[in-house]
């Protein structure tokens, strides 16, 4: 065995996705054109939702060469009336991979805003054509960019950037890509149809390359409440996230600069001149007097200055690297001397004590209440007892092992409140009902939104609608997750499983009834079974909510059916009288030797 050195090269995220593009749904021309549309449309809808704008989306696909056969080059354009993207962010947003605004914890269609760039990347590698992005955030100036992605460097190459006049806000992206519309067409049309069903407040127009035009107008002007960003829930946390939370939120040793100095002066009610005119003792007096009113940042800086016996000018020349509590030492870099110094500090010093206290970080119970949603002091203390930590245990003083134990215990503790659903944006019963009514024109319709629940720390809400009769033919299930239609792989989806588990005979519903079931699962993280985002995995908590919702609707439907059955019976009953009584009348007239029939109409009054 040889120990030849393997060259390890870093690759850019663009390159990673270029090499693994089938992961993101760009495996072949049929899927790619479909996925591209999805990503762009979902980006537009998300942007509009978050800004409370009723979306107008226009999707246009034209083929570059009509005569050519599929797969061939298509120009795909998706434009919206959303807020647009700030022109200075456009090159980064659409010219690099992993530049997105969706890292917070809230419900959105896309997770990281990766998709649009992926579509652009795919277009570029199949047709070697730049992407066109038109964005206007003010409704006056429209910035038009034409650019390519430098895949290896993960950087945009701007070919053209002009500013045009416009009257409308919004974003339009135009990609030239290789696709197979003849194969992907029905899937794309299904996607657009179902998207407009679950987004009844959006108008969506679609012109396909064959000259067909599809138009779905908004059927309501009420937009569901946009989701808010929330803190994480303890159940959804792992060690790595925990570590990030701690480092993100713990104190930072600030470096003194002019800006900070101004703030300090303000807090101390001093001027720069005062520093020179006053002796140190006077300043220290002032500091001590106002100590409890000062900000943490100021206190830390003043404490360091005091420990190192520095004045403000000197303090601006150093950078504190580390404070070692165990050994009572402080290490700093002196810019002037370009050298590191480690100084032993006096443990009994008031300012050192303060500094040490800050370094140790928050106590466990304060950390929990500050950093997690729906954790109060009481819960935090109960948790500490459960995890066998002292509630006042300092978070920065935890060893690696203790952090692992903390993370494990957070998953196991059962007394946390369920996650805050305010980060979710369900459609709402009203909108769902309106959508179903418009699309299927049924005789019966009932919808339910279950209250929020959670699986592994991720909140979710199940919305379900059932429609029966009217223009409906046959039984069909429409599945949605975070307002995205799930089109394929129905049979392995959790909703499908629940529907099949129910004994429909019990609810007087026969096979192949004219029945539509619409399911919508909202969550900050939908547990998809596969990367293709086509089916939701069967988590117990989700199953339970779906089942309860479906049973509720089935009961409603069943009582509707029996009412309908009774009405039909009643009608049949009355019909029977109308059929037979005249016959009886006719027969008895001849039988009784009468010439005129009896006035039997009176009898019908008694029936009704």
């Amino acid at each position, binding site marked *: 065995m040889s120990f030849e050195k393997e060259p390890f090269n870093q690759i850019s995220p663009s390159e990673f996705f270029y090499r693994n593009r089938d992961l993101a749904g760009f495996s072949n021309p049929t899927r790619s054109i479909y996925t591209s549309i999805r990503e762009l449309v979902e980006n537009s809808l998300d942007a509009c939702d978050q800004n409370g704008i009723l979306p107008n989306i226009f999707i246009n696909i034209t083929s570059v060469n009509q005569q050519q056969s599929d797969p061939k080059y298509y120009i795909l354009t998706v434009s919206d009336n959303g807020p647009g993207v700030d022109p200075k962010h456009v090159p980064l947003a659409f010219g690099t991979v992993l530049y997105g605004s969706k890292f917070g914890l809230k419900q959105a269609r896309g997770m990281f805003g990766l998709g649009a760039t992926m579509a652009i990347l795919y277009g570029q590698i199949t047709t070697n054509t730049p992407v066109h992005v038109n964005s206007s955030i003010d409704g006056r100036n429209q910035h038009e960019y034409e650019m390519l992605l430098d895949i290896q460097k993960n950087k945009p190459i701007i070919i053209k950037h002009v500013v045009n006049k416009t009257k409308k806000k919004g974003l339009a992206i135009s990609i030239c890509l290789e696709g197979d519309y003849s194969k992907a067409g029905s899937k794309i049309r299904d996607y657009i149809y179902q998207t407009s069903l679950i987004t009844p407040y959006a108008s969506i127009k679609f012109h396909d390359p064959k000259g067909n035009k599809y138009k779905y107008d908004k059927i309501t002007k009420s937009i569901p409440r946009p989701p808010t960003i929330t803190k994480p829930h303890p159940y959804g946390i792992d060690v790595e996230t925990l570590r990030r939370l701690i480092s993100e939120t713990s104190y930072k040793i600030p470096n003194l600069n002019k800006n900070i100095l101004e703030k300090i002066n303000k807090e101390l009610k001093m001027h720069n001149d005062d520093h020179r005119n006053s002796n140190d003792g006077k300043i220290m007096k002032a500091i001590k007097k106002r100590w409890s009113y000062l900000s943490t940042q100021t206190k830390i800086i003043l404490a360091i200055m005091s420990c190192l016996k520095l004045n403000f000018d000197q303090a601006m020349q150093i950078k504190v690297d580390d404070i070692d509590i165990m050994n009572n030492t402080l290490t700093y870099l002196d810019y002037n001397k370009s050298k590191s110094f480690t100084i032993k500090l006096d443990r009994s010093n008031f300012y050192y004590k303060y500094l040490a206290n800050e370094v140790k970080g928050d106590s466990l119970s304060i950390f929990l209440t500050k950093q997690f949603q729906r954790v109060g002091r009481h819960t935090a203390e109960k948790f500490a007892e459960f995890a066998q930590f002292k509630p006042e245990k300092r978070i920065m003083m935890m060893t690696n092992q203790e952090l692992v134990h903390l993370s494990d215990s957070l998953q196991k503790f059962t007394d946390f409140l369920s996650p805050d659903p305010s980060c979710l944006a369900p459609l709402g019963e009203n909108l769902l009902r309106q959508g179903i009514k418009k699309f299927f024109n049924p005789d019966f319709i009932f919808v339910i939104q279950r209250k929020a629940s959670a699986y592994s720390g991720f909140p979710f809400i199940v919305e379900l609608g059932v429609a029966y009769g009217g223009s409906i033919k046959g039984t069909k299930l429409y599945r949605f997750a975070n307002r995205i239609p799930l089109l394929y792989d129905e049979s392995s989806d959790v909703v499908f499983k629940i529907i099949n588990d129910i004994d429909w005979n019990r609810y007087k519903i026969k096979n192949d009834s004219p029945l539509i079931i619409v399911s919508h699962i909202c969550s900050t993280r939908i547990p998809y079974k596969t990367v293709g985002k086509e089916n939701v995995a069967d988590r117990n908590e989700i199953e339970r909510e779906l089942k309860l919702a479906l049973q509720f609707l089935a009961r409603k439907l069943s009582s509707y059916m029996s009412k309908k059955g009774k009405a039909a019976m009643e009608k049949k*009953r009355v019909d*029977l*009288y109308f059929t*037979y*009584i005249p*016959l*009886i*009348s006719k*027969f*008895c*007239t*001849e*039988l*009784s*030797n*009468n010439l005129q029939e*009896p*006035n*039997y109409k*009176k*009898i019908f*009054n*008694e029936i009704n």
Partner: protein
Amino acid sequence: MRYKETKKNKLLYDLLKNHGVKIYEDLDNGVFPKFLIPSRSTRNIIYDRKLRQYVLGNSASIRNSKNISQLRSFTQLTWLAFFANRLIKEKKSSTLRDIYYSSQAFSIDFEDQPESDNIIVDLESVLSRPREDLHIFPEERSSVFGDLVIEYTVPGYEGKRTNLSDHPDGYLIGPSLSSAELIETSADLVIAIEKGGLFTRFVEEQVDKKFKSIIIDTAGQAPRSTRYLLRRLHEELNLPVVILTDGDVYGEHIAMVIKSGSANAAHLRELTVPDAKWIGVWASDIEKYKLPTIPMTESDIKRIHDLKKDPRYQQGIWKNELDVFLKIKRKAELEAFSKYGLTNITDKYLPQKLEMAKSL
């Protein structure tokens, strides 16, 4: 004589009309019309010792046109009365199957013939009249032969007379014969015989002349028209009736039905000949005449046990012969006499049994 038949029709006609008037008035008054139908359930079938036949008890059910589940059959029943009324008026007859099909011309749909047959029995119950009076006949036909002059009343034949000994195959007992007037006869006796083969033999052997009799082929269980004719021969012409059947439990019961009716027809009168006599073949004859026999089947034996519970089989030859059948567990057909020559039955057996019958 002619008056009798006409009067009967008039009575029936009035009966139907009365029902029609009742329904008509109910409808006119805004009331749902209803029929009272005597119940034909087994619990309501009682043996009447005085009448010597099965009759229906007092329980009856109401067929109300207001009740949605009875509306259809009520209409069917009304239609049937209406249709029978037409049949009688126009002097036409109809078979059970005809009824089933005729209904369709009046938007009355019977699901199948059993349903229409059932409605016919309903009407019989309501009117206490056999369907034959309503000019409705089954397909089954039996025959009659002998010196009997009849006068037809059916349209086209009114007043025409026939002697029932004119045709050696006998005359079908059909609607026209059933409604004919019985004019005159030289016979002193009616012999009802279960089997067509023996009926032909009896005609060939001139049993009609030798025993001054009218011979009737019942063709198994006697149809109602045949029973009706037997009764009329007995009632109107004062002729005694004797019955000759196979020597088994079914034969014995054929005789009993002629004599005292069936449970199925408990709602009807005038179909029985209470004085009729079963003269053979008895179980005891099997040994006495050393007839060739066939072993009884299980269902034969079960039938004996069933009949032993019947009040009419509790005494006399009826009880005795059942017991003997049960003892020997064998049966013999009328043809069994052929072992001793084809005419053995008419030359030997019949005279002996007729002689014996006088003492029954």
